[in-house]
């Protein structure tokens, strides 16, 4: 019923919009009918719709949202297909920070159009979206994961947030055992993203990097992943599966992990900032009972690591109304909208000044705490591996997934991985 009435009202609105548009065309700049494609976790789509409604009211354009599954790996395949087919139906793509080098040929150069605003953003983020001197996407928000922990449970059992992965293993095990002895049967120590997809690449990169094991492929193109520190951390992570983490973690993505966490069934969770606002919502079992700290450091490492994420907006080269599409991208990336996004859904802004904005810090103080985490975030090797990045990432998450599911040791799987990466590289990336 509800769906039908929504569809009807949607149909009515679009008819109305068309009628209005036909009147307006004569006088104002022509109103365009645009579409944006976006994947989603949490409340992403709901929020995007809200911002697009504002955009529609301001400009007279109409925008429809094409939704995608949550898995970034699935989104990418579809986008590549559409772009290669020169699909004119999609005007704006929401793209992951790692996709710029792979899809650059299909996107409009925004350098000129965004010349007035690029200076407001963090230079590193703008640089990550610049390929061969062309700015292919404008940043919407940035991302860096952190360790979520249950303040109530840690206090109850006299523990402090862990600084190393070994400490995390011990604390999680101790609290989980004590809670289970008290009859809390459903509780687990640590949930994270262990499914075989891009998210596991992020998780495993953090383990390895934080243990001094490099970042898979170094900026100069050298394959560095096959080393003792990396193997040590993979082996440690493999001990979590079935002990402090549910066995199903090998199939978890962001939302599955958040599901367990938000029901109050996990002591620790590794997740992105979006989970913060959702965990604090009224229907959450952990509302007001959790805190966030930087991810732990490995036993042989010196510095913790968080993978750099973030989403950007690109205009398709095959859009039939590029000007209106660019207008929309600039609107969604503007300070005003980023501020709203930060306050409502704890998405990290890419505009420097927003980290000192009193409204943002007043509503979500955690945004300020997140600044150092994201500033030191480690990028995935998408720049050095260029068009081969997806294959490199798949080989890496396969090696990690194999180790986690007990299919060979970390050292064995990393040796195989190194050989496979050398094959992919051949003479050069």
């Amino acid at each position, binding site marked *: 019923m509800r769906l039908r009435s929504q569809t009807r009202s949607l149909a009515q609105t679009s008819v109305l919009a068309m009628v209005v548009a036909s009147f307006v065309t004569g006088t104002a700049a022509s109103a365009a009918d645009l579409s944006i494609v976006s994947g989603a976790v949490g409340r992403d789509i709901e929020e995007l719709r809200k911002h697009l409604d504002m955009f529609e009211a301001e400009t007279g354009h109409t925008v429809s949202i094409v939704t995608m599954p949550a898995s970034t790996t699935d989104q990418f395949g579809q986008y590549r*297909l559409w772009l290669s087919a020169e699909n004119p139906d999609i005007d704006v793509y929401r793209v992951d920070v790692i996709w710029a080098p792979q899809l650059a*040929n299909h996107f409009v150069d925004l350098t000129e159009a965004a010349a007035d605003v690029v200076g407001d953003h963090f230079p590193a983020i703008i640089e990550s979206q610049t390929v061969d001197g062309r700015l292919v996407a404008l940043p919407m928000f940035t991302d860096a994961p952190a360790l979520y922990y249950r303040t109530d449970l840690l206090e109850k059992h006299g523990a402090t947030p862990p600084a190393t992965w070994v400490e995390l293993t011990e604390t999680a095990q101790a609290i989980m055992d004590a809670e289970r002895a008290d009859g809390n049967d459903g509780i687990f120590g640590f949930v994270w993203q262990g*499914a*075989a997809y891009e998210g596991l690449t992020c998780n495993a990169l953090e383990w390895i990097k934080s243990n001094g094991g490099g970042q898979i492929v170094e900026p100069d193109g050298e394959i560095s992943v096959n080393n003792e520190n990396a193997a040590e951390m993979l082996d440690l992570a493999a001990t979590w599966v079935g002990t402090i983490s549910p066995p199903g973690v090998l*199939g978890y993505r962001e939302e599955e992990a958040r599901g367990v966490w938000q029901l109050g069934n996990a002591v620790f969770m590794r997740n992105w900032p979006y989970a913060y606002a959702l965990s604090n919502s009224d229907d959450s079992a952990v509302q007001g009972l959790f805190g966030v700290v930087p991810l732990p450091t490995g036993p042989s490492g010196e510095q913790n690591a968080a993978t750099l994420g973030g989403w950007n907006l690109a205009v398709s080269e095959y859009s039939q109304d590029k000007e209106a599409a660019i207008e929309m991208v600039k609107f969604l990336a503007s300070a005003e909208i980023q501020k709203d996004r930060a306050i409502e859904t704890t998405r990290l802004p890419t505009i420097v000044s927003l980290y000192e904005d009193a409204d943002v810090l007043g509503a979500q103080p955690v945004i300020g705490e997140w600044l150092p985490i994201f500033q030191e975030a480690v990028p995935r090797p998408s720049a050095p591996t260029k*068009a081969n990045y997806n294959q490199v990432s*798949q080989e890496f998450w396969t090696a990690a997934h194999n180790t986690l599911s007990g299919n060979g040791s970390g050292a064995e799987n990393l040796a195989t991985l190194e050989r496979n990466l050398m094959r992919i590289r051949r003479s050069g990336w």
Partner: protein
Amino acid sequence: MVTATSSLPQAETKAATKSTQLTREKIRAAWIFLTPMILVLLAVAAWPLIRTIWFGFTDARLSVPGSGEWIGFENYLYWLDYGGGDGEWIGILADPTWWRAVYNTVYFTVIAVSIETVLGLIVALVLNAQFAGRGFVRAAILVPWAIPTIVSAKMWDWMLNDQFGILNDLFMMVGLISAPIAWTSSPDTAMWAVIMVDVWKTTPFMALLILAGMQMLPGDIYEAAKVDGVHPVKVFFKVTLPLIKPAIMVAVIFRMLDSLRIFDLIYVLTPNNVQTVTMSVYARQHLFDFDNFAYGSAASTLLFLIIAGTTILYIYAGRVNLSGDK
């Protein structure tokens, strides 16, 4: 035939010309009716197939529009020379992941189709019996087959979930398992979870095809067997089974073709897991996720050849068996 009735040569010749003309007209009409279908088939089946095979011999990439230089068999097998006598074979035929995918696919096909055949046969036997409400049961059993695979896969994905899944809940309640099992993500159970869902979905199809075969059987044989007092089990193995064998063979070949190219179920239930990667999943990954359109096309070509080869082998082996029985 014409020479045999030569008593009325003139009338005969007239009739003959008329019939040839009629035949010719009929053939012409047949061609007119067939042409659109042949054209459509060429456009939607033959042309893409030829294109795919052709792309398999090029270096086409989706990220570089207009690319696609002929490189021969390099996608299939290629000696990568490191210089100084050092080097290694690369290409699909030297890729362990591809062979793993082939193994997974064949393993899945053999197990799933066998179980489906046996279960389908049992269901067909039950549905062939007279009982009240048979029409309703026949319709009801088709429900899994009627649900789109992507929907039933997602449905099972939730039922198999380790934290919220109803399956774990049920099994724990009756005491079959002590802790929840992560059906789709544990390497030991992932393939079996996929097989189970496939069996659930396609057994009705098997049952329906076999049931159709059973209903063609003449009743007098059974009456004769009854008069002779032959045991029902013996009747089944000596009479029913040989007679419905052609129907089973057809059903099996349909299912085999289907499961050799299985994609949707695995894509939803266990995406990207090495334990369940099949040939189709492998090809798709290279076609779209990786920037390897040509390599993926080569994998698709191999998939086509393997399926075609299996089918021919099966039909050939099936015939030999049939004649051997007689």
